[in-house]
């Protein structure tokens, strides 16, 4: 339900004296101006990285996967590490847009648009790795189940790798639809205030002819709610299925039932860190501090300390089980070759970055410090990258046959491929930040009168004219019957 008043103890989600028009002005005007110098610098660095990635991948496709430092022992290296890392990052966007919508967390409105964009771009990056890992990438379409002339040769529906194909493509499609349906009204806002012909044309096409009709809004609300309801189990399923790639195997260190929740928590953890990294820059560059407030940052830091601790518990549980299960191979993997051994350093980077450092967020002062938040967001993403590296490589490099034991460091095409996905991600994100409303304008207007700073203050200044019973009757029951502002008037008319 929508509250008429919100407690003053809750800090406002929109700072400053705003009215509806000011909200439009603040969020849309960066689209209409020329981008700054920093934008061009950032954009061209991203494009350069992207081109370097294209070169590295072309090299790999031409000479074959042999140019990567993978071998018989270590069949999965940086490529799958990066795949899992990018998919994980995507999860925060859906969590913010879907799960927090269902939990009625008002603060999501300031950050959901950018977080969803991040999801889509991260999943695009993630998808590249398994595709090029196939080696003969021109046969990638073999993963699609369709009646073919090769037998018909069907895919193996029992295989978690195939489940991945379905999970990632569904996740990408649904996130894209959810994101774009939310963008339609905002594109219409850009279109209707556009001064140049080109902008009117392009945003006119992008807005699909949205007008803001009451009936359309009613359907739009229904659509958003159902898509949120669908995305919630979807996002949990995606990383669960990614974890099945490992958990259904018989490799010590992978063959464990804790993986699905552990992977999902880690995904949310790293995703929120990436949202923080991006939004701290975006709010500064586009002067959106009134909309992405310290309150938003703090809320996300709370999620980070929670999920970081969940991940920490998972690490300890794994160690305990490796000892308690009394399986010598499992024990060796964890105690001899993960926490110690030639790749042991990666394990301790993971532990430090993911479990120890995020504990600073127990302190309110730290949660509300921009510099600490920014540095922590980078540390967490380094830590989470190492988590995937540790899971994949330290389980593989010491296998059952000591003669196959090996060490692993990436070759330049592997590093180049990873850098290239950064290029892809940031190229997309820079374009998004310039040409798209980075904050959901309509959604901010929707919550403005309950959570805007000036409205909260004004609401507290006047006395409530209704009796307690009447107020409860009006605002606790017929919550769908009237607007979120001016209920008293609306309701008087209603009665």
């Amino acid at each position, binding site marked *: 339900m*929508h509250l008429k008043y919100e407690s003053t103890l809750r800090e406002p989600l929109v700072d400053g004296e705003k009215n509806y028009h000011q909200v*439009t002005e603040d969020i849309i005007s960066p689209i209409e101006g020329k981008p700054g110098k920093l934008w061009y610098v950032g954009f061209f660095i991203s494009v350069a990285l992207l081109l370097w990635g294209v070169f590295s991948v072309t090299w790999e496709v031409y000479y074959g996967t042999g140019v990567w430092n993978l071998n018989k022992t270590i069949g999965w290296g940086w490529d799958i590490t990066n795949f899992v890392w990018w998919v994980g990052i995507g999860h925060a966007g859906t969590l913010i847009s879907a799960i927090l919508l269902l939990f009625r967390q008002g603060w999501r409105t300031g950050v959901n648009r950018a977080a969803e964009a991040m999801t889509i771009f991260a999943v695009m990056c993630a998808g590249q790795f398994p595709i090029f890992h196939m080696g003969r990438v021109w046969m990638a379409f073999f993963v699609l189940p369709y009646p073919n002339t090769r*037998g*018909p040769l*069907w895919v*193996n*529906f*029992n295989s978690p790798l195939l*489940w991945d194909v*379905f*999970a990632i493509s*569904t996740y990408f*499609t*649904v996130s894209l*639809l*959810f994101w774009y*349906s939310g963008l*339609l*009204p905002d594109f219409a*806002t850009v*279109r*209707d*205030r556009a001064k140049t012909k080109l902008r*009117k*044309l392009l*945003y*006119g096409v*992008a807005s*699909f*002819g*949205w*007008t*803001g*009709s*009451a*009936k*359309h*809004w*009613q*359907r739009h*609300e*229904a*659509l958003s709610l*159902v898509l949120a309801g*669908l995305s919630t189990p*979807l996002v949990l*399923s995606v990383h669960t*299925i990614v974890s099945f790639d490992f958990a259904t195997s018989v490799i010590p260190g992978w063959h464990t039932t804790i993986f699905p929740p552990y992977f999902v928590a880690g995904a949310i953890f790293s995703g929120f860190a990436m949202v923080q990294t991006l939004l701290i820059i975006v709010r500064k560059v586009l002067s959106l501090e009134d909309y992405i407030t310290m309150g938003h940052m703090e809320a996300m830091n709370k999620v980070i300390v929670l999920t970081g601790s969940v991940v920490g518990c998972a690490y300890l549980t794994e160690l305990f089980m490796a000892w308690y299960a009394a399986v010598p191979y499992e024990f060796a993997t964890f105690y001899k070759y993960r926490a110690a051994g030639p790749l042991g350093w990666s394990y301790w980077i993971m532990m430090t970055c993911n479990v120890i450092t995020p504990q600073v967020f127990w302190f309110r002062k730290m949660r509300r410090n921009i510099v600490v938040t920014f540095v922590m967001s980078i540390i967490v993403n380094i830590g989470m990258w190492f988590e995937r590296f540790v899971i994949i490589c330290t389980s593989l490099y010491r296998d059952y046959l000591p003669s196959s034991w090996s060490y692993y460091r990436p070759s330049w095409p592997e590093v180049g491929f990873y850098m290239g996905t950064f290029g892809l991600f940031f190229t997309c994100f820079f374009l998004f930040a310039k040409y798209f409303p980075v904050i959901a304008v*309509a*959604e901010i*207007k929707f919550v403005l009168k309950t959570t805007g700073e000036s409205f909260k203050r004004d609401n507290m200044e006047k006395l409530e004219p209704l009796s307690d019973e009447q107020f409860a009757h009006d605002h606790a029951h017929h919550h*769908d019957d*009237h*607007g*979120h*502002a*001016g209920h008293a008037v*609306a309701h008087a*008319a*209603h009665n």
Partner: protein
Amino acid sequence: MAVKNFVVASFDDEAVLFPAVKKVRTAGYKIHDVYTPFPVHGLDHAMGLRETSLHTAGFIYGVCGTTTALSCMSWIFNSDWPLNIGGKPHFPLPAFIPITFELTVLFAAVGMVMTFCYLCNLMPGVKKHIFHPRQTDDLFVMVIEVTAKTNAEEVKALLAQAGGLEINEQRAEAGWWYGRFDQDDEATLYKNAETATVNA
């Protein structure tokens, strides 16, 4: 698709809009539509709009997804090309669950979005008449259809009394057409409509 006459009034606050909607409806006029920059909760009820059935459509699409996934996979594994994969059964239901779930979600989401676009006439290249350029910014725009029986002046007076701003009359296409928002094509559109009416 029809070109009609409308009385248009803007409101700058939901608190003024709601009683105005009520007033216009009690006076017996038919509200063509109210355009708002964001979803105003309860406006659909105030206007007497029917609840949307989009959720039901979504459920049906989801069930289609479930059925498609399960029937296709079991047909392939049991009848089209039964293959022995590590001695596993030909109908391994637990292993089918992930794909079944994904397809359920995919069908429901894609189906609902397409239905939404179809019902609301939303598509790239679709153009509609914009009654007020600020209806997607900060104004709530109420549009009342003027028929042969309507006294437009009376409607205007009523709206002014209810707090409406910038009250005017517009002749506009009520539906949609293919067009570009950077081109002012409405004049020719209405001219053609008139010629068509005369010829008929």
